């Protein structure tokens, strides 16, 4: 371009508009900076140890890892140079070795299937039926997401254990006892406890945005209700289910404390070993293992993102399907069957979701002698009043949790929106950028924690200065980085589904790119924005690892830290704090989603 740029720059109004028009660029730069400072750089300081050992670049650590049958099972032989046919035969044989990596993937797949199976009926219930408390129930579905694993473990033992509620109920109705604890099943159910609500939320959103007229058209063309569902509804809901499934896989692939708490060491996953290696300061092996873990998680995310990019559906202006009453309108099979199914589901959901939470609540009011007591709550009050300044006290923890979550959400929103806008544009390698932006979901939490310690707390030495960051601001940034991928994932499909000419019309009318996002795009995908905000909030509330690394003192501790601190021989104090977390989180979500209005997002 030979013409001098900005020939029209002489215009008076250009200055203000200039600022506005650069808002997007500025936001993108700030987002990248936040990601680099609070994620990529810190993580890289650790991951690089996989290939740099004693200052020399080597692939030896990887080679050793990849050819180790302990980690890679039969596949390791492939890396070691065995013939693929022999390996394939070994894999098909009944006594094949999966290796830790294979087993981790295996349990993640099972967990994903279970989460989808438990999430879909909930989506059906929430999307297609009207009943009192539906919105509140919907808001509360996010609660499992924030519960520390020890709380879930407590709830699960109390529910599914030998002397648990489930067995008591089974005995009551004369059925044989089940022994679920310390099995793969228990781990899978716990993963479903965490992730089925996620699947349900995503799917509900998609289901609610299915255009009624499309279904009506199908029906008018002679399709029965089932056929109309298969042909019209399912294809529109399917991508959302896949979103939930992909995220569930990634989360359960990186699972750590819950596996050992409910399954035991014989079910150890990759992350268990990353943790141990980091603890033993065996960074090269830890980093190599974390890279393998990251590669697999990102691979799944990448595959999913490619799918999402190909299947962007328009979200604009749909007339939602009318909700039905839970009370059948007529005693016909077609009316009764789905409701009977839902009743069965509610029983299952009661056991999987409600019982553990109820058990936790019960544990918080049960004393050492088994009698009901408020002692544990008295402990909280007592600790608040008499705890030393350097000890974790309940009220600052609640206050910090809410403040950090609010600030992190406010930061994660623009970050997520900017990345969503940038990844909705068409260019080569877009899905790669998108996947890289999702990396905070996929990197081992332990590695991120160590990275933050090195990159932020210790800081970087530049030209004789050591720049370090910790405390509230750093915690908020770290939480925002952890939560923003959810904003991207909720907002991005909506944005890419928007008619491009809406954006262009607004720009031709004089609006800058940033202004168009504010005036046109965000209002049109608002439900997704609220949904993303809810997840960012939840991630921040539940976050533990980076919080304890970055906290500068008891002043910066949050509710999950308080719970961890209150765990002792008796579970009462910790469960009482857990109940506080539950209540605070539940209330927050009801408020957030009321503020955001009825939404169609996650």
């Amino acid at each position: 371009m030979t013409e001098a740029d900005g020939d029209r720059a002489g215009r008076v109004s250009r200055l203000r508009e200039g600022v506005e028009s650069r808002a997007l660029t500025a936001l993108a730069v700030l987002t990248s900076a936040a990601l680099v400072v609070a994620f990529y750089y810190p993580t890289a300081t650790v991951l690089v140890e996989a290939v740099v050992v004693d200052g020399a670049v080597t692939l030896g650590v990887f080679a050793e890892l990849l050819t180790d049958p302990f980690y890679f099972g039969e596949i390791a032989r492939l890396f070691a140079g065995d013939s693929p046919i022999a390996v394939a035969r070994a894999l098909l044989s009944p006594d094949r070795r999966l290796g830790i990596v294979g087993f981790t993937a295996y349990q993640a797949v099972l967990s994903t299937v279970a989460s989808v199976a438990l999430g879909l009926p909930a989506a059906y219930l929430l999307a297609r039926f009207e009943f009192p408390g539906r919105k509140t129930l919907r808001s509360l579905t996010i609660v499992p997401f924030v519960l520390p694993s020890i709380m879930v473990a407590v709830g699960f033992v109390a529910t599914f254990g030998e002397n648990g509620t489930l067995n008591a109920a089974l005995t009551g109705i004369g059925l044989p006892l089940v022994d679920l604890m310390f099995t793969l099943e228990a781990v899978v159910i716990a993963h479903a406890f965490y992730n089925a609500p996620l699947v349900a939320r995503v799917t509900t959103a998609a289901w609610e945005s299915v255009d009624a007229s499309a279904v009506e058209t199908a029906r008018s063309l002679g399709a029965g209700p089932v056929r109309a569902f298969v042909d019209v509804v399912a294809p529109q809901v399917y991508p959302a289910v896949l979103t939930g499934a992909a995220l569930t896989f990634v989360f359960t692939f990186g699972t750590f404390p819950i596996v050992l708490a409910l399954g035991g060491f014989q079910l150890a996953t990759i992350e268990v070993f990353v943790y141990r290696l980091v603890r033993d300061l065996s960074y090269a092996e830890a980093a190599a293992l974390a890279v393998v873990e990251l590669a697999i998680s990102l691979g799944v995310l990448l595959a999913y993102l490619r799918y999402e990019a190909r299947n962007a559906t328009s979200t604009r202006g749909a007339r939602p399907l009318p909700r039905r009453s839970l009370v059948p309108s007529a005693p016909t099979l077609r009316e009764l069957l789905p409701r009977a199914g839902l009743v069965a589901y509610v029983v299952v959901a009661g056991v999987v979701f409600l019982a553990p939470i109820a058990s936790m609540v019960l544990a918080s009011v049960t004393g050492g002698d088994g009698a009901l007591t408020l002692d544990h709550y008295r402990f909280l009050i007592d600790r608040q009043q008499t705890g030393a300044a350097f000890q974790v006290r309940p009220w600052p923890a609640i206050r910090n949790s809410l403040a950090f979550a609010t600030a992190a959400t406010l930061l994660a929103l623009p970050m997520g929106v900017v990345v969503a806008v940038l990844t909705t544009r068409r260019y080569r390698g877009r899905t790669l950028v998108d996947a890289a932006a999702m990396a905070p979901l996929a990197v081992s939490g332990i590695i991120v924690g160590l990275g933050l310690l090195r990159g932020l707390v210790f800081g970087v030495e530049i030209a004789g200065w050591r720049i370090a960051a910790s405390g509230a601001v750093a915690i908020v940034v770290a939480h925002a980085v952890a939560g923003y991928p959810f904003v991207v994932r909720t907002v991005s499909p909506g944005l890419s589904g928007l008619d491009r000419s809406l954006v262009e019309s607004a720009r031709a009318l004089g609006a800058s790119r940033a202004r168009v996002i504010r005036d046109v795009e965000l209002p049109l995908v608002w439900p997704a924005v609220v949904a993303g905000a809810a997840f960012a909030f939840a991630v921040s509330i539940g976050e533990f690892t980076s919080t304890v690394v970055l906290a500068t003192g008891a002043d910066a501790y949050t509710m999950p830290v308080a719970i961890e601190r209150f765990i002792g021989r008796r579970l009462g104090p910790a469960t009482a704090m857990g109940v506080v977390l539950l209540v605070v989180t539940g209330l927050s979500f009801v408020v957030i989603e009321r503020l955001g209005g009825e939404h169609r997002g996650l």
Partner: protein
Amino acid sequence: MTTDESETRRRRARPHTRRRFLTAAGAAGAAALAGCSAERVDDGGDGGDGTGNETGDGDDADGSDGDDGDDETPTLTVATYTNFIDAPSVSPGEWLKEEFESRYDAELEWATPDNEVNYYVERAASGAGVDADLYVGLTTEDLVRVDEELDDDLFAEAGEIEGSGAVREGLQFDPFDRAVPFDTGYVSLVYDGTTMEAPETFDGLLDDEHAGALIAQNPGGSATGRAFLLHTISRFGDGGVASDGDGETVSGEDGDPDYDYLDYWADLQENDVRVLGTWDDAYAAWSEGEAPMVVSYSTDQVFADMEGQDLEKHQIRFLNDQAYANPEGMAVFADADEPDLARRFMSFMLEPDVQGEIAQRNVAFPATEGAELPSDYAELAQEPADPVTFTYDELQGSVDAWVEAWERQFAGN
């Protein structure tokens, strides 16, 4: 900007601008944002302001948080693990701080980084400077790990510590005299005496009647789990799994060279032992009655008594009359700002009344002879006839291999 010329120009300009920006940003950041700091590296390690996990009572009215003045009260930064200062039941932190400050003209600040000793290893390795004066709660394994990781010493030699002569024999675990023990604990079995009688020996755990009866912890993530694993190694030998390191093997007390700890664990696993992640997981599951035995501390009844629980449900079993001993030590950091004060604190920790308080509040056993303890303390806090522990030299070069070999056997998929 695509020509080579402009690219070169930009490159040349960059370092200058960059530095100016960072200096400015650092200064502004330190002023504006809590916890963001920029400090000159060659200033000496004087500015521990705000970085790290110092949990001092910074919001005290006197505000004498900084340690920059000579004539002001000196501040001693004591690093430790969180339970030492903040546990739901009791912890010695608060008492120690008040007592120390009342006896000496000094202020005590606790620092409890999440990664514990590893935090300081990391700090030292990354050149960030260790921002504490001493560490309280070192174990033999910590020292082994620290020494393997760092070329330079993280800790200084203890030197003359008043009262260190009173430390009980056999507790000294640092061959280089850096760490001074201040308490010890024993990892044993805790069992519910209302439902079972625990076996008296390791072999007894393999009996059919105890199938699925024991909950242990992951040796890779839990101190009790590791202690129990080490105890089995001491009992059955390591079968030479760590011999590539130093050519040493541990031969078990059982006297059978063909039966090592891995064989024992294979039998345990066969007998449905549960190995959970942490002591929290394990103790919670045990409390819920998932199994009648759990690997825990021999002081369990102290807690049970404190909480008014049925002691019959909290029985202690020392297998083969043994328990693995975990002495805890304290050591001064090599580049402590207040090394003398730190050593005075160490003496303070060894004083008889303080030893008694630590033992009671940390629910452990004193490290010195003559600690002042209530006469009935020993009734509830039980000590084994034959404490077992590996020395620094035995652990060095072996412990990682022992744990790894165990992992590979136990979790082999």
